[in-house]
């Protein structure tokens, strides 16, 4: 091959004219943006997890010491258990109740639009506000639930909702479910509305009972939407912070500490930035697992448009 250095275009020209080079150029602004605002904090967090940084004192690299320390820390393991328990139970409840609500709202109800708007309420109220409301509902003395149950003679003294580990766990789950249902219900309702009515009619003529119509037509057609909605729901729940922090601050005796709240508490009020970061980093494998799971769940089904 003859070498012709004289006619060789400049590096710039070659980049500008090659397809990949040009593509890279166009992606550059987005890449820089991502690097600065997403990757940098993430990288910093991960780095902090390997140091003994405290507030007001730059740390030094200490390798895996934070993680070894966490491994021997029962409170950390309790928070892992709490997070998994909280996420699993709340997600299952949100899915079940949300789907049920969506199915109800998809029928021809009088004042349908009114109900659809009402459903959204828990979601548009700021979390802190709803958390405060629940705080009042779960109050050990003035709880409306205790008051009602006592009035009906079902219990003799107020329930200490947030004072006992297990009632506290269930209480925060209840608050989270209340808050998360609208998202699930409205999203699934949107999904339901994409299913043509004639499919249900065809199934009815084919001899399907209402339950069979649901399990054999509606549900399979809804799976792609369910996968998206539940992925988001699980991620939101797993990383929940506000509700817990306002309601219990992780108490009683760490019974409701999630990884997110524990991380914050160790890092900011506790001042152990390195350790807090390590806890947060420990969430990553769980989140990755969830994302991987949804990646397969979200893959186009063979019957879906554009699957090939």
């Amino acid at each position, binding site marked *: 091959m003859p070498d012709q250095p004289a006619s060789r275009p400049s590096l710039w020209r070659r980049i500008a004219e090659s397809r990949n080079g040009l593509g890279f150029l166009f992606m550059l602004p987005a890449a820089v943006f991502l690097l600065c605002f997403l990757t940098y904090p993430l990288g910093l967090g991960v780095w902090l997890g390997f140091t003994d940084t405290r507030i007001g004192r730059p740390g030094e690299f200490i390798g895996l010491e934070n993680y070894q320390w966490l491994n021997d820390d029962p409170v950390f393991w309790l928070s892992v258990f709490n997070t998994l328990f909280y996420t699993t139970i709340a997600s299952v409840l949100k899915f079940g109740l949300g789907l049920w609500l969506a199915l109800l709202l998809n029928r021809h109800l009088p004042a349908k639009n009114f109900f659809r708007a009402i459903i959204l309420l828990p979601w548009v109220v700021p979390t802190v506000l709803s958390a405060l409301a629940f705080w009042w509902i779960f109050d050990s003395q003035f709880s409306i639930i205790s008051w009602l149950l006592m009035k009906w003679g079902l219990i003799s003294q107020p329930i200490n909702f947030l004072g006992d580990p297990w009632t506290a766990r269930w209480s925060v789950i209840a608050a989270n479910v209340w808050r998360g249902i609208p998202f699930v219900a409205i999203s699934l309702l949107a999904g339901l509305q994409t299913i*043509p009515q004639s499919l249900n*009619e*065809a199934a009815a*003529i084919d001899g399907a009972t209402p339950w069979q119509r649901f399990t054999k037509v509606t549900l399979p057609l809804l799976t792609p939407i369910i996968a998206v909605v539940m992925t988001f729901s699980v991620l939101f729940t797993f990383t929940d912070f506000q509700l817990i922090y306002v309601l219990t601050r992780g108490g009683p005796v760490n019974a409701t500490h999630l990884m997110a709240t524990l991380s914050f508490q160790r890092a900011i009020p506790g001042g152990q930035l390195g350790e807090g970061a390590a806890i947060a980093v420990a969430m990553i494998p769980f989140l990755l697992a969830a994302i991987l799971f949804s990646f397969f769940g979200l893959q186009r089904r063979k*019957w879906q448009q554009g699957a090939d």
Partner: protein
Amino acid sequence: MASVTIRDVRKSYGAVEVMHGVSVDIDEGEFVVLVGPSGCGKSTLLRMLAGLEHITAGQILIGDKVVNDLPPKERDIAMVFQNYALYPHLTVAENMGFSLKLKGVSRHEIEQKVTPAAEILGLAHLLDRYPRQLSGGQRQRVAMGRAIVRDPQVFLFDEPLSNLDAKLRVTMRTEIKNLHHRLQTTTVYVTHDQIEAMTMADKIVVMHDGRVEQIGAPLELYDRPANLFVAGFIGSPAMNMIAGRIEGGAFVSEGGQRLPLPPGAHAGSGKLIYGARPEAITLGGDIPLTILVTEPTGAETHVVGQLGGTQVTCVFRERLTAGPGEIVNVAIDAAAVHLFDAESGVRLSN
């Protein structure tokens, strides 16, 4: 197979009555076509037959059983929807076997029923595809296959060909007709296309605004339309309608043109409508026709012209050399002329 009886059926949506007492008798094995303009209530009637729509008043019987309050699954009918309503998440084979699977029929037996049905419809090589991988015509066939596999008492079709192109529509028309010959299942077929109705039906039910205008065999409707609506709806190009009255043994149009009366027409006094089908007008004769447009189609020549002050369409067998503006003389076959009362639109007996 079963007969179907529709007795004075009415349907209201809220306070609005859209079906004002429809009665139709359908014999076992008959192919009945419901035809009428958009919004006349064909789909509504079909959906009431299927059990998808509540019957406000009247009775529907399948066989000799009143089915008014039976849910669709207990009526033993199969329906082909206009948009086919194939289950997108099931393959062609699964779509066709869906009803059997619901009944708990064994896999082997389902296959034994699906395979021959697929062969009849030319779907045998598509059984593993999903609906999205099929063409419109193939989807239509799968929808029919799903109905055939059921082996129901009655087939219901709601404008099944309206999404297909003109050529495929003609092919599918023949296929559906063949299928009916083969299976002899009672069929109710909805369309707004009168040609489809004419070519496929044993019996046509012409509907208009929630009422039945006329019921009869295709040629019966063509030859003896009961009223102006049916006369204008059946036949293409449509029947020519000329307003006028009978004077001195002949029909005199509002434009003063004398036209021959059908035999046995007695002199009425009121205003009449003189109906002549395009092919009842032939070249030669003594009635002047001013040509406006000629449309040669090869076998025939369609001519639009002025006759007695009214615009008419004629279909001539001959090729025409005369062009727009020229006048040709035509004759009207008096035996093929229909007379209607102008006020009520009712056919005057002859």
